[in-house]
């Protein structure tokens, strides 16, 4: 038996990576928000780094508290807390504070609280609880419906704030559903829909219709005899794809706004006119353009901590929040940037290992919930900063400035790590 203290049983590698990323993130926030006259006091709540440190300490305190709370209690109260979370989201429409057009915050004196961050944790827990119920099977349509509902309710409430970036994160929980047995062809349908949309924009309507007809023809000839999807799917899916392809030009030109179109133009390289492309890059793609330039200027070893000229010049907007990785690229260079990427990959892989060794379904499913949320944040954030994905404003876990975000990311992980640490305990249910 390992040590009886939780600290000795908890997974060291994961904790270490989380701690390292958070610490590095804090130093980067310090660099990106440093102004000549700003206070260097560590816990000054008037500064970004001060607030971030405060929330970090809060997270430590919360972890200490949580270490005395049994996982059963967490499971037992997860449904209730989910409903409390929904109530908090609804409450925003009455008491919320609007920042930059989104009513996503509660004003708590010097600090702001963003319930959508808490809701990620609560949704993951609620979903884990629902799916871990014996008798719930994702093969059954009604159960599929409820599982999806758990995800979709907060998504809708958050979209209405409006904060589509955060809402997108909840869709990551679908990965958990697939992991838990939701048929993969749903995922295939989603992936193909996105693919069909993008490819139609690139290659045009007629090419895509002909290609799709050929592909589906081939599919019907060669489709597998075993494990084949139900026939209604086989018919609905091609119909859906043809509809997507056919409607894409109309949707792109009529439903989308110009700034949406520009984002896609930029991302998919649709604009062939060099001058217009540069114009788009410098207007709608300004963030991405500046972030790319800043990162590129870092080269192998970067310009040195606090020496990033573009970081200091505040050239990259939101560089202490969503675009924080650009500052890492500029000041620390390729080696450290790659190390940060590897740290995230390492943490995710380690969490997958941990999730798979859980004996209890609730713990495993929750673990996958955590993994999915971290994964989508990591992918979309760095993909956006590196100019590989269109601009979608969501923070980089542990790194980006944002108290609620940091607090709940740490807590979310800690809850799972605590489950893992206690996996050998005998559970009475």
């Amino acid at each position, binding site marked *: 038996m390992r040590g009886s203290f939780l600290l000795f049983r908890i997974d060291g590698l994961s904790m270490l990576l989380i701690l390292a990323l958070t610490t590095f993130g804090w130093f980067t926030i310090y660099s990106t928000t440093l102004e000549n006259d700003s206070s260097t006091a560590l816990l000054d709540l008037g500064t970004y780094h001060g607030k971030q440190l405060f929330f970090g300490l809060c997270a430590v305190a919360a972890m200490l508290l949580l270490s005395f709370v049994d996982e059963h209690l967490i499971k037992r109260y997860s449904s209730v807390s989910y409903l409390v979370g929904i109530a908090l989201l609804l409450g925003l429409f009455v008491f919320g504070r609007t920042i930059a057009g989104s009513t996503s915050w509660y004003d708590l004196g010097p600090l702001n609280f963003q319930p959508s961050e808490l809701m990620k944790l609560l949704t993951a827990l609620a979903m884990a609880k629902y799916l871990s119920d014996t008798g719930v099977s994702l093969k059954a349509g009604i159960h599929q419906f409820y599982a999806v509902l758990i995800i979709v309710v907060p998504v809708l409430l958050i979209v209405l704030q409006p904060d589509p970036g955060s809402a997108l994160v909840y869709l990551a929980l679908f990965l958990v559903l697939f992991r838990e047995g939701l048929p993969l062809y749903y995922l295939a349908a989603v992936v193909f829909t996105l693919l069909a949309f993008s490819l139609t924009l690139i290659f045009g309507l007629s090419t895509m219709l002909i290609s799709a007809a050929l592909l589906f023809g081939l599919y019907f000839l060669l489709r597998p005899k075993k494990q084949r999807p139900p026939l209604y799917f086989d018919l609905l899916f091609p119909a859906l794809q043809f509809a997507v392809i056919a409607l894409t030009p109309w949707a792109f030109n009529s439903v989308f706004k110009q700034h949406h179109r520009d984002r896609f133009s930029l991302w998919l390289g649709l604009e062939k006119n060099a001058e217009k492309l540069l114009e788009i890059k410098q207007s709608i793609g300004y963030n991405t353009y500046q972030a790319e330039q800043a990162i*590129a200027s870092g080269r192998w070893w970067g310009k040195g901590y606090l020496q990033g000229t573009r970081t200091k010049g505040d050239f990259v907007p939101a560089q202490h929040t969503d675009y924080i990785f650009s500052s890492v690229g500029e000041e620390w260079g390729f080696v450290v940037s790659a190390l940060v990427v590897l740290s995230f990959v390492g943490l995710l892989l380690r969490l997958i290992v941990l999730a798979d060794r859980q004996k209890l379904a609730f713990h495993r499913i929750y673990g996958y919930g955590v993994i999915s949320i971290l994964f989508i944040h990591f992918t979309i954030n760095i993909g956006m900063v*590196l100019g590989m994905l269109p601009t979608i404003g969501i923070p980089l876990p542990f790194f980006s400035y944002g108290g609620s975000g940091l607090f709940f990311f740490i807590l979310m992980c800690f809850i799972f790590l605590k489950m893992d640490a206690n996996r050998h305990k005998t559970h009475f249910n």
Partner: protein
Amino acid sequence: MSRFLLSFSVILVGVLFIARLVNLQLFFKESTLAESDPAITKEFIYPERGFIYDRNNELLVSNQVAYDVIVIPSAVKELDTLAFLQLLDLDQELFEQRMKRAENYSRRLPSVIVSSLSKERYAVLQEKLRRFEGFFIRKKSLRSYHTAASANVLGYISEVNPTDMRSNAYYIAGENIGRTGIERQYEELLRGKKGVRYIQKDRFNREIGSYQDGVLDSLPTMGENLQITIDKTLQEYGELLMNGKRGGIVAIEPSTGEILSMISGPTYDPSLLVGRKRSKNYTELYYDSLARPTWDRSILAEPSPGSPFKALNALVALQEGIINPKTTVTCYDGFFVYGDKRGCHCGGGVRDLISGIHHSCNAFFAETFRSYYRNFESTAEAHDRWTAHMKSFGLGEFLGVDLPTGRPGRIPDTEYYDRAYGPNRWVSTYIISNAIGQGEVAATPLQLANMTAAIANRGFFYTPHLLRSVDGRPVVDLIPSFTQKRQTTIDPKHFEPVIEGMSKVYTEGTARYLQVKGITIAGKTGTVENFTRIDGKKTQLTDHSVFVAFAPVEDPKIAIAIYIENGYYGARYAGHIASLMIEKYLKGSISRTDLEARMLNKTLEHEYAKPYSGKPFQINEYAW
């Protein structure tokens, strides 16, 4: 979905991100130097241009502050054009034209709208300009002249043009560069070294401090102060004497080769080429194609030297043993070439070397010249030797003076005559005009002055130069060649009879009315025939007046050459001016005020107008 699919996705995303980082950070083609970083602005700090002093440490050129009104087009908002134009005293059309040019150049970088405001206007503007967004005042430095003379020596500075910037990476738009004279010759000493400051900017282009705490910054090094060899008093006096006359004066200190004066007439006040009126004034000067005030006659005019050249021919004949001081020639008021009589003004009779010089006897030198060529097997051999002797006096070649322009003059060599007549198809009588300094030989006033200095030194000279010291370091440390003796091919002993003859020019010869009490002067007059074409017809104009002299004879302090276009005989204008210049330099004041008044007042404009009058005209008029 298997756990492997999820793990695989995580790894795939990681690999894609790192590949993208490699692409961006290791292969992205953008330069990472501070120059290309929009967050870093490089700003130059300009040093003050070096001052120029004369040989007695009198300040000639310093700097003054001036103000430009500049515009940053992107910052201009809701301009009240009418009020603005009134404030600047600017023409609407001109203003729009300049704004358009500024916009075309850059919307974010400053362009000049009004250049070189006066201090008074600046005082008014400073208060009111803040009402006009996008317009600013920029301080700049202009030259300030403490003399109205020496424009041809000092030269001027002006803004660099695209060609300058292409050929020399040091310069960027808006900087000044020396264009002519000392300003150009010693540009690198005078300009100093500009300092640089790297400024960290934010995305609104606001300064937020110095980049990397200034480790890359450098301080400007001030331009070096030059002392030139010009004597301000003498230079100014010479320019006064040149009133209404065209020509050149060069005075050299024989013992050093330092140029005491270098005057070109007509000239202009160097202050004309400074500030707002610069462009207008320059155009006026440049397009005066008759008087050509920007053409430095002291180093660019190449007239035939005339009779002063006789002194050199005498030296060559002495050196080659053709004559001795006692050799005589009879002058029949002229001499004969193939039965054709060429005139002489010496009065006729038996002439020896000394009287031949001070009476400027053409016959004596023509005969000596012929004897010289007879002494050799072939004309070519004789002429080669003659050419070598002449060139050893710095004639026919660039002297190496420290000015960016100059002319080599001409000593026609064997090849020159071979081309004209064919090899072995010419003899001494073809080229006999060279005996008396007419014909094909040509020399700049600078070369004549240098030749005189070589005679004064009895056989050597120093490269004539204008730089005396740089911030207290003497020229010998900077350009050692300026202090190296250049020996002529003539033995020192042969100079004495020639100098005796030149002294007698003043005591009993062609310049006997121009003596200066208490100073022994050796000189030689020259009266140079010259021709021009009027409506395609070769027409003779009034002779050029040429004079060379040095003084005192025993210990020469000044050697001077004067060339006055169409001034008639040598003793008239050139002789007068030489006499006054020598007295001014050696005594500091003028005793013969009548002579001085005559030179200050008399002009030759009527003479210069003759060829353009369209009417027949008299040349070499006796009355003046």
